[in-house]
């Protein structure tokens, strides 16, 4: 069954059309890679799914588990189980990572009508995950992402993802700016979360990440649409031939 269904999605940003009738289905438990050249609309798709204000949907629908989420606020979408790992995670001065995680988790649980997680349970969950990701306790006490290296910020995104345990995670170029060791740690963190009822969209420009997070399906985006869908071998083909073929096809 499809967890995410995007139909004929048209999106404008500051009056400029970025997505032009995009169709995409992500099955439950599926890891879908989205690849494509710069400017093809990959990050726009990520932001639209998360509900960023300045992204205007002019046509189409997005259903999460059968429910239209386009009218929902970003926090409502999060409570429904949607998570965006940002390409450029922002620094939040003055808010300790632990406080941030607890506030977010409890807000989501409240929205879902669940009780708050007890403090020992919460701390156990965070510490365990942080351990896997090589995030030390000191980092958890510090303000969110403040003074973190690029790699630390990306690991912090995966930590949040693991603690919030979303049904659909969208990873927007999580590999950008990572060296090979950091990439392995991040990929390992993502792989731990794979399960039959959790889906992921892995947006990337390069095939490299997909060696570590092996996708079930690969979609190619160009000019605001999905133009080709295939198995994981499609990523290798793209690596060899580049994206030029799709851009030309579009132009033709």
């Amino acid at each position, binding site marked *: 069954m499809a967890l995410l269904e995007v139909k004929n999605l048209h999106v404008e940003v500051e009056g400029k059309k970025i997505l032009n009738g995009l169709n995409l289905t992500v099955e439950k438990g599926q890891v879908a890679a989205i690849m494509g050249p710069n400017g093809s609309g990959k990050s726009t798709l990520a932001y639209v799914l998360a*509900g960023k204000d300045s992204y205007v949907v002019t046509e189409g629908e997005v259903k999460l588990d059968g429910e239209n989420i386009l009218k929902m606020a*970003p926090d409502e979408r999060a409570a429904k189980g949607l998570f965006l790992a940002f390409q450029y995670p922002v620094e939040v001065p003055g808010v300790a990572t632990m406080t941030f995680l607890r506030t977010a*988790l409890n807000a989501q649980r409240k929205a879902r009508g669940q009780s708050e997680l007890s403090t020992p349970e919460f701390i156990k969950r965070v510490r365990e995950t942080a351990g896997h990701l090589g995030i030390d306790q000191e980092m958890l006490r510090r303000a969110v992402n403040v003074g973190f290296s690029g790699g630390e910020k990306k690991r912090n995104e995966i930590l*949040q993802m693991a603690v*919030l345990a979303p049904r659909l995670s969208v990873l927007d170029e999580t590999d950008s700016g990572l060296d090979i060791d950091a990439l392995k740690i991040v990929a390992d963190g993502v792989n731990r979360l794979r399960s039959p009822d959790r889906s992921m969209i892995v947006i990337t420009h390069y095939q490299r990440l997909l060696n570590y997070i092996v996708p079930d399906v690969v979609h190619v985006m160009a000019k605001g649409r999905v133009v080709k869908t295939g198995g994981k071998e499609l990523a290798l083909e793209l690596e060899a031939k580049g994206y030029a073929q799709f851009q030309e096809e579009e132009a033709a």
Partner: protein
Amino acid sequence: MAELRAIKTPAEQALTAAYETARGKLPGAAALRAGAFKQFERQGLPNRRVEEWKYTDLRALMREAYPLAAPPDAAAKARAKDAGRLLAGVDCRRLVFVDGVFVPELSDLVEESGLTIGSLAAQLSASDPQLAADLGKTIETDDVAIALNSALMGDGAVIHVAAGTALKRPIQLVFASSGGSASSAFVRSLVEIENNAKVTLIETHEGGADQINAVLELKAGDDASVDYIKTTQTQGLHIGSLLAEIGANAVFNSFAFNAEARIVRNQMFVHFAGEGTKAGIRGVTLARGKDHVDTTLFIDHAVGHCESREQFRSVLDDESRGVFQGKIVVRAHAQKTDAKMMTRALLLSEDAEADNKPELEIFADDVVCGHGATTSAPSEELKFYLRSRGIPEPEAEALLVQAFVGEAIEEIGHEGIRQALMIAALKWLGARS
């Protein structure tokens, strides 16, 4: 006919009348009062044409001057009994003033070695020669608000901490209003902290609809360690002046906290008198409604090898106005001065206003000095990040504001005070809706 003077405002006329009526009854210091009053007569109330008072025009903000408060009666004292509650949880030595008058029976006068406490009114009446020699001498300025205070001062604390004394508890000067009729009070305190002494001093103002003019003269000796916290609440008008002279190799940390403050002018004159001293001059303002809170600094690096950090943050909601004027002077021979000033205003409403005027006057050539100022609404980008994690918008904004204020409050060394002010800030934020 030599001098062209503006027509006196009703407030100025009332102040003149108050002085004429009270001068026979005010305690001591007749010559100081007369000179100061003459200065007021010459200059009048500060207005927008006076550069230092540009954003806080007292001619406009003080439509009238209230009469001097009568000494508090038993009922007035009873009403002020639980004053200082903002820091109620902090174990302090409280010295309580009601409507500007020292109230020994509400104060903690338990003896402590090295500490002397007196009342300004009592010592002026007794013509204390030491006090006469010290009063008004900490820093000489031609500021009119201070001159008015010198002319009309009634009471205040006179505190002496002997060399090498580390006080066990913070001293809290609580200036409370009995909440009676609209009145004014001019309080003047002198605190002398001798070499190598360690003191935490809190000045708390809980005003009603009254007009308060408070001056604190603070002298800290060499190697002294002084934490100075000022909290100001008022439904009326508060003009506060700190005149501080800091000796060599001392540590001076101040923190001004303004919340529920209708009209406030907080001016701080800090003079570095000895090398090797470090000062942190900080504060937080939370303003809403039509609050007007002005922080004005005159930091005088008169000697070299001192470090100062001036950091102020304000959160401005509704139609409130936050003013920051920060002047740092580095004298020609004050080499190796290290001064950094930073002010940040967070605007929560379209109609709030932040006025920022940093001024550096540097006459030495081997110094590190800088300043920065930011004014902005809570970041949409940050809010989106928080919301994308499931935190609803009002909570996301509250968390960001709390963090903004919390970062500043974190700098306070005393844990109890830090926590009490954080709670006060959260309470203020909680009242937003």
